[in-house]
């Protein structure tokens, strides 16, 4: 089967190359048949890659260890859920996932736009297939996912324990969907520049894909944050790690893009900016994949595979140089049709928001690549930590959130004092009330930044509520609908607008959760034995008892803690640390079960007011002596079994292993029967849950904006679009007449 898989990849590569040729020839010669054939090559590519992906997935599900990638990333004891996801824990599998998702999204956009953007589509097809060719080239020539082993091992290595989390099913595919979806507006922007069709047509064809990319990338980022909060045992959700930053950068520029294209659609402005922004976003998405996969910023680590660095750098350099070249080449056609009328207008708010988002992206880019920059400048590798990132990103985030509140409240073109007063009075009053009320809460003024930020969030949420209320009221009068019905139909008929407002409110709530939880968080490291007590932020915490479990996959040491406040029971928390057996024989027959990879399960009581978070770090050193004794005993017994005959007695060996399992369980039970002090980290984090609530509201708003409008609404949009197109055409013909 591996041979079939590899053959499918070779076929896919050939199909992609054919598609590029057919599309470009069709575009140059004007022959539609070739263009259609190029588009169908994308459909064929999606079909072939679906087969290849299914083939590899099947090998994982049936634990076929003759596939090298299966043997090194899965095992028979890996639960089926994780067998299915292990495919993208490997370098080869994740590259295959990338190109497969790209082929699916490309097919979708080309199918939907098959009767529109006729001049642009063939070039966009060639660009999308160019990406596919690059990744297929890597898969065929460098990282073959269908490589086989001469002798299939009896058992695989298993999925890295740290990757065993429900988010493993959704986090990587969501991120990769985000990255690949951003390549679609990128490709159409390149197409528009090459074909010199620089009106809003290409934006209209791909706007929804940019929004989908933004949404998927957002889902991926949030799932990753949640994962590290509940699993990795350090109590944080964001660490400014290069891999995290890699996903945030295209998300920021993508956010800027989905706002600034509105100005191009409505007023024909910012054409150069929009083209540059999406070209940068597409490049950053590839850079994200590169950072995750190349290990360039982690070269001190022994586990990174950095063989892909050079091809990726060539691709990124091509994208950067090509993008700059294209924008310079078409700079005349990219001139704005209008000028900014006033600094007090929605356009100006959008432009400022765009500048801030791009500035934030630049800060993160600089900090992420600083080790490479400093090495190039000073010869010594230097890195900046979270405080450096926080220093710059916090004020920018303040300003961005304030603009999410102001933007929807000021009109296009020019605001007057009267409409500013009408629109801003309620949100400003809400902010003032919130600030005064919070100032009365003891301790809040100790953190003035968080306090001020809460005022901004009140302003944003009140602004969104005011807009929804006004719209609902108008609809009630017009359509004679009851209020809840009017609200639903208001949002249904203006999904993009109100979905966007909901995103604004959700994002403000999310950042409020970040501001409050990080400012008022209390944490404590403490060593306790069962029966011991400690206190943190007004809570009494008692270590009730130790627990242990010896399973086929891992040995688990746990602790049950009771949390009380003012004598009342608040929560019972269970936290564990699981040790997966190491395969390193030098660690000893018993010792290898206690010295392998470990993963923490956090004890978490989440609440709207605060999260109580606890993790245990059991110290296994007191077991070391008995483990070493076990190693010696069983090594001697193993030698005697092996000496007894020429053929090792399988039954005796099984009995010996059964005895060893009992011994291991006995050793682990000492954690419960003769407990010794264990280290705990306790965190009380106010309003941390609002991060996740805010994220859900944000993503729900994004999904509302993405959902196709009902038939009536679509007609309206189409009519507005047709009017714009007519204006564009009239302008082009005027220009042509002028030239003539």
């Amino acid at each position, binding site marked *: 089967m591996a041979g079939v898989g590899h053959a499918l990849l070779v076929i896919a590569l050939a199909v992609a190359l054919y598609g590029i040729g057919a599309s470009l020839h069709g575009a140059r010669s004007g022959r539609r048949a070739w263009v259609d054939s190029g588009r169908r090559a994308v459909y064929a590519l999606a079909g072939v890659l679906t087969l290849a992906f299914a083939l590899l997935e099947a090998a994982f599900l049936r634990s076929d260890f003759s596939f*090298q990638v299966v*043997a*090194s990333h899965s*095992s*028979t*004891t890996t639960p089926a859920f994780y067998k299915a996801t292990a495919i993208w824990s490997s*370098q080869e599998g994740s590259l295959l996932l990338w190109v497969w998702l790209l082929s699916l999204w490309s097919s979708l956009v080309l199918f939907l736009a098959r009767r529109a953007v006729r001049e642009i589509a063939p070039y966009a097809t060639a660009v999308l297939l160019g990406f596919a060719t690059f990744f297929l080239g890597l898969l065929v020539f460098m990282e073959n996912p269908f490589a086989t*082993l*001469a002798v299939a*091992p*009896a*058992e695989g*290595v298993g999925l*890295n324990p*740290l990757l065993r989390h429900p988010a493993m099913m959704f986090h*990587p595919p969501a991120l990769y969907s985000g990255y690949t979806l951003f390549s679609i507006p990128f490709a159409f922007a390149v197409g528009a520049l090459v074909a010199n069709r620089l009106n809003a047509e290409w934006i209209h064809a791909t706007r929804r894909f940019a929004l989908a990319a933004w949404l998927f990338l957002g889902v991926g980022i949030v799932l990753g944050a949640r994962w590290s909060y509940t699993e*990795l*045992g350090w109590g944080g959700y964001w*660490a400014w*790690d290069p*891999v995290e930053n890699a996903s945030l950068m295209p998300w920021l520029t993508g956010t800027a893009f989905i706002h600034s294209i509105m100005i191009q659609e409505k007023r024909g402005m910012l054409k150069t900016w929009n083209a540059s922004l999406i070209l940068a976003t597409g490049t950053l998405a590839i850079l994200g994949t590169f950072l*995750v996969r190349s*290990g360039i910023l*982690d070269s*001190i*680590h*022994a*586990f990174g595979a950095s063989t892909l660095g050079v091809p990726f750098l060539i691709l990124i350099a091509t994208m950067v140089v090509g993008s700059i070249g294209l924008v310079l080449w078409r700079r005349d056609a990219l001139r704005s049709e209008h000028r900014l009328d006033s600094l007090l207008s929605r356009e100006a708010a959008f432009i400022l928001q765009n500048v801030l988002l791009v500035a934030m992206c*630049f800060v993160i880019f*600089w*900090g992420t690549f*600083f*080790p490479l920059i*400093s090495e190039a400048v000073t010869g*010594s*590798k*230097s*890195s*900046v*930590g979270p405080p*450096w990132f926080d*220093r*710059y990103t916090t004020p920018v985030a303040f300003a961005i959130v304030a603009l999410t509140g102001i933007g929807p409240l000021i009109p296009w073109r020019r605001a007057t004092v009267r409409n500013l007063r009408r629109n801003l009075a309620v949100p400003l009053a809400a902010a003032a009330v919130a600030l005064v009320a919070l100032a009365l809460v003891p301790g809040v003024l100790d953190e003035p930044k968080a306090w001020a930020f809460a005022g901004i969030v009140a302003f944003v949420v009140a602004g969104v509520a005011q807009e929804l209320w006004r719209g609902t009221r108008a609809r009630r009068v017009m359509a004679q609908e009851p209020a809840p019905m009017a609200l639903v139909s208001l949002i249904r008929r203006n999904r993009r607008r109100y979905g966007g407002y909901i995103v604004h409110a959700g994002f403000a709530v999310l950042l409020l959760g970040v501001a409050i939880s990080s400012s008022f968080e209390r944490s404590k*490291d403490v*060593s306790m034995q069962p029966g011991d007590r400690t206190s943190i932020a007004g809570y009494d915490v008692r270590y009730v008892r130790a627990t242990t479990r010896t399973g*086929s996959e891992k040995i688990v040491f746990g602790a049950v803690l009771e949390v009380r406040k003012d004598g009342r029971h608040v929560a019972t928390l269970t936290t564990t640390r699981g040790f997966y*057996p190491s*395969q390193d*024989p030098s660690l000893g027959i018993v010792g290898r*079960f206690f*010295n392998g*990879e*470990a993963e*923490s399960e956090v004890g978490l009581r989440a609440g709207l007011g605060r999260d109580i978070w606890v993790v245990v*770090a059991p*110290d296994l050193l007191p077991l070391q002596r008995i483990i070493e004794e076990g190693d010696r005993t069983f090594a001697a017994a193993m030698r005697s079994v092996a000496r007894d005959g020429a053929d090792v007695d399988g039954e005796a*060996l099984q009995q010996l*292993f059964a005895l*060893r*399992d009992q011994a291991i369980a006995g050793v682990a039970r000492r954690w419960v029967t003769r407990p010794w002090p264990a280290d705990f980290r306790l965190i009380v984090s106010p309003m941390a849950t609002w991060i996740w609530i805010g994220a859900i509201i944000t993503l729900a708003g994004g999904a509302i904006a993405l959902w196709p409008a009902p038939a009536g609404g679509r007609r309206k949009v189409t009519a507005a679009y047709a009017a714009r197109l007519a204006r564009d055409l009239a302008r082009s013909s005027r220009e042509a007449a002028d030239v003539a």
Partner: protein
Amino acid sequence: MDPSRKRRIRLVVALTAAVLLSSALVYTSFSAGSDEKTAGQLLDSAVPGETYTLAGTVEPGSVRRADGVLWFRIMDPNRPGVSARVRYTGLVPDPFREGRGVMVKVQRSGAGSALFIAEKDSMVTKCPSKFQVAPEELERRQADPDGLPPDRRAAA
């Protein structure tokens, strides 16, 4: 005022602001950045009181824990046999183990001392998505199937 002149002034103001802000960014990153050093470099030239980022692999067999303090040695990737002893407190990320690459912020405990005191909670290990299985591990699997734990053998 002439609109084109007004636009030019706006552009100059915006560019000046951008240049000033970027200079601040560049300056603070160079002054706040902590140098990544290997164990050998720190043993040779680290000054007590200065903070450095020590990067390298945790020496197998060197990890000890006592009274909430973690002791280990970090090997120099370029100079075999050279390693620095580290005293670490605070949270240890799950991926930490012997033989794994880590980064930790340290200060030398005294002039000429081979002991480095780590800043609390400063340890960084690699994102689990990047761990790859070493090829030797697979070779070992093929050569020594009996080295597997019994439950895995039974399942296989």
